[in-house]
């Protein structure tokens, strides 16, 4: 199974081979988890969203024509599902807010700073949050980010620039 290409696993899955699909999930779980945890933080919903991502990918296999790499399409679904979950939390007012904003910066440990970053990331516009997640957190190149989000490279650079300016305004006291 290790030698089988992603494209071949996708074709086998389309034909109903669930073993092939399980192998595809195993191969790409890490990437999907990385994206989801970056946007949603730790929590039970993260795995629910993870499952949704792969279920949606499976359901759309019949329409998948192979114009992009399977992983590009998969990560695009992961970004969209995660941002949908953020919107839901905003509506329910349960956005990640467990930070002690009154705490002295010098008293903050790594976990506290990480919580602040997660909070500030979730406040970003979804368009900015997606480029920050893919480029800065997950380490995709700017071109890969553009391919996944299906936007021009210039737009990625512009959004990254604006997002980092916003983040600097709020995180400057922590650096």
């Amino acid at each position, binding site marked *: 199974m290790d030698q089988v290409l992603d494209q071949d696993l996708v074709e086998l899955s389309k034909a109903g081979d669930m073993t092939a699909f399980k192998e595809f999930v*195993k191969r790409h779980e*890490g990437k999907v*988890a990385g994206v989801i*945890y970056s946007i949603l933080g*730790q929590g039970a919903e993260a795995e629910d969203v*993870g499952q949704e991502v792969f279920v949606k990918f499976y359901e759309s296999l019949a329409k998948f024509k192979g114009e992009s790499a399977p992983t590009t399409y998969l990560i695009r679904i992961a970004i969209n599902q995660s941002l949908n979950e953020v919107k839901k939390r905003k509506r329910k007012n349960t956005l990640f807010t467990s930070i002690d904003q009154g705490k002295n910066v010098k008293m903050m440990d790594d976990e506290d700073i990480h919580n602040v970053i997660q909070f500030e990331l979730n406040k970003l516009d979804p368009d900015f949050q997606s480029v920050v997640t893919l480029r800065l957190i997950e*380490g995709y190149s700017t071109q890969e980010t553009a391919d996944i989000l299906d936007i021009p490279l210039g737009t990625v650079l512009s959004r990254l620039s604006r997002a980092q*300016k916003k983040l600097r305004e709020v995180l400057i006291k922590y650096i």
Partner: protein
Amino acid sequence: MAKKSIEDLLIESLDQSLNEQEKLQLDQTLTQDRDLRKQLNQYSKIRELVRRKRETSFGPFFGHRVVNRIQSLRMEIDHQIIFFFKKYQLAALGVLVALIAINAIFAEDLTVQSLFGVEENINGTINEADSISFDFYKDLNEQL
């Protein structure tokens, strides 16, 4: 294309996406501007903070759980389809029973033909003109 600000050049330099002219412009400005160098350092640190290592797994047997969910969804869809048609099956059965009951009420004699609404002649036999030939193959052969 609008001219980029020095701050934009600074940020984009971290993605190595500047052309030669832009790199030269930024280098010259950085050499002379200490605050700009400090700003570059801050952007680098923010990137490091944001890039903190995160969990990259949903726990053991995740693939198994995904496949189980897909199979449960399929079964649910199959049940919904069966249930959808079941309603119409029951309705059709109800209509058939009602028609048989109506025929039974208005029939002079209770025979199988009368229950199904087949017309009979005075002798209680079926009119040949009303009977339907089911010898399909005979008809087909005659046509060929």
